[in-house]
């Protein structure tokens, strides 16, 4: 697998407004062939609108889009043969069997994989003759991906593919995406789960309010925090909380943020920062009720950039 010179997807100045809400406010993206590119952001960030514009399903108000070197205008039929799409919250026909649904989608493509092939990839072989309405949430999502894969696409678009799924189903789906990538395909993924973005994506664009606020590989993004560890603690009720500035001034602490009774510190080294912190709190006569540490995640990055959590939106 080699990355070709031309990007798989290129868009610039992408803009979309709905009445008085600007859903996408000028987006520039370049997605390389063979990579898995993630759009990470809370609900309402404009991820779905962006991806649906890239998929040619939603008309854009401004900007240009190029997929595989072609524009949508004049090349729609060609492009659709090369794409696989799994939309958010699609309910496929209830009383068709799994195999019938996949066969239906296969019939739309000039060339593609066989129904059995695709069933094996998504591990739905034993549910081949089951009605769609009898499938669990995870199984339905795998069916949706099967329908996206059956045309043997060059680019796979997945809009929030694991929302609402249990951890095991989520992992199953990740493996399917990973195997597609190994086959040389390009993946565009939207999600609000930072673990998903970190695991699957080669590069991530962090979105908020219709704009990209950070872009790069997960590692680069976390490194941009300046520090790669996070210490969180909570104080007992009635304790006098120390000011954030005082905490940020402690040696080894890059940044400090307070959210009610909880404090989040970004630190370079946990084993130096924690003793310093405890000493400071003891000096002030303040008691801790909780102390946890973890590696910095994209969630922490988002928090530091916007002051909000990915989940809350």
């Amino acid at each position, binding site marked *: 697998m080699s990355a070709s010179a031309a990007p798989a997807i290129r868009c610039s100045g992408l803009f979309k407004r709905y009445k008085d809400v600007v859903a996408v406010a000028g987006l520039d993206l370049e997605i390389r062939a063979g990579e898995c590119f993630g759009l990470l952001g809370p609900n309402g960030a404009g991820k779905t609108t962006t991806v649906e514009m890239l998929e040619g399903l939603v008309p854009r108000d401004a900007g240009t889009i190029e997929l595989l070197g072609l524009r949508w205008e004049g090349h729609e039929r060609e492009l659709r043969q090369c794409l696989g799409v799994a939309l958010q919250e699609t309910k496929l026909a209830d009383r*068709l069997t799994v195999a019938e649904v996949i066969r239906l989608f296969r019939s739309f493509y*000039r060339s593609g994989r066989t129904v059995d092939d695709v069933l094996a990839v998504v591990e739905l072989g034993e549910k081949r003759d089951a009605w769609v309405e009898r499938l669990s949430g995870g199984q339905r999502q795998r069916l949706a991906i099967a329908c996206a894969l059956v045309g043997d696409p060059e680019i796979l678009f997945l809009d929030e593919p694991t929302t609402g799924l249990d951890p095991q189903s989520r992992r199953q789906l990740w493996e399917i995406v990973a195997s597609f990538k190994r086959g040389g395909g390009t993946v565009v993924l939207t999600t609000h789960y930072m673990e998903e973005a970190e695991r699957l994506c080669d590069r991530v664009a962090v979105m908020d309010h219709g704009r990209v606020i950070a872009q790069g590989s997960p590692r680069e993004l976390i490194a941009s925090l300046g520090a790669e560890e996070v210490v969180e603690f909570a104080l007992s009720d009635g304790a006098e909380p120390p000011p954030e500035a005082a905490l940020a001034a402690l040696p080894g602490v890059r940044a400090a943020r307070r959210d009610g009774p909880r404090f989040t510190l970004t630190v370079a080294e946990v084993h130096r920062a924690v003793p310093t912190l405890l000493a400071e709190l003891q000096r002030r006569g303040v008691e801790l009720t909780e102390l946890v540490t973890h590696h910095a995640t994209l969630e922490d990055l988002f928090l530091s950039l916007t002051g909000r959590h990915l989940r809350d939106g």
Partner: protein
Amino acid sequence: MSYWRPLIQLTLARFREQLRQPEVLFWVFGFPLLLAVALGLAFRNRPPDVVRVAVEDVAGGGADSLARALGEGRGLRAVVLPPAEAARRLRQGSVALVVVPGTPIVYRFDSTRTESRIARLVADDALQRALGRRDARAVVDRTEMARGARYIDFLIPGLLGLNLMGTGMWGMGYAVVDARKRRLMKRLMASPMRRSQYLLSFIVARLVMLGPETVVLIGFGMLAFGVPMRGSVLDFAGLVVLGAVCFAGLGLLTASRARTTETANGLMNLVMLPMWILSGVFFSSANFPAAMQPLIQALPLTALNDALRAVMLDGARLGAVAVPAAICAGWGLVSFAVALRIFRWS
């Protein structure tokens, strides 16, 4: 390039969705049959009822002799009653006519009721004969019940028209709105499937289901009730197909922009209910006042029912029903054209 493969798969999918839902099978086949049986029984032709007449028992007598004379009349039964009781029974409808002896004889009855008008004629005829009237000329009665003129004969083609409208509109319209609501339509648009294939699949599925639907209803009418098929079967089939396509178009139009199934339901009912009542399904549309007739004749279901009846019961050729057929076709064409122009494809 295979245009047909997606079309075949889409049509198969339509069939499977419909046939795997028992409710659909009921509404398409069971419901019209139930209606035909129930209404056919309720309104079956029966021999005329006996006419009941009351004679007021007034001072001065004469009531008994009048009652006797009336009793001579065919299908007439007379009873002598005190005035108050006679009036009460007239009001209730248990007698159709009250005769008051005297000079002149007085007939009291409700002139807007057919039953009462008949009672008055028969009673008067019986009394006049008893008093000496003679016919100027000998007459002979020959009664026959014409096939094709009974209520059930009127009803069956009407029910077929109703069925075509219902299945056309719900089958096409509701299914489309449902697909749009579930984002299935958007998902299909993201694939190489063409819009024409999508729409055609509905129409092809509709046309194939049409055969069994029509055969079951008409066949039932012919076998169980002896409803005649006087016209050409081919002409009749042609009209059925025309009606189905016309209502598919109307269904598509109603569904062209609705985002929720609630809106779609409301619109469909709005379109169909007037035709349920006005278009001569259960009773002749001529019952409505003359001022409404131009509107009623312009409705697609009225046109279809008129054409179906003309071919089935009167044996008319297609040429004779060109006007109603054209009305149907016109509605279909315009509906499709407008629907395609304003259709929301996701």
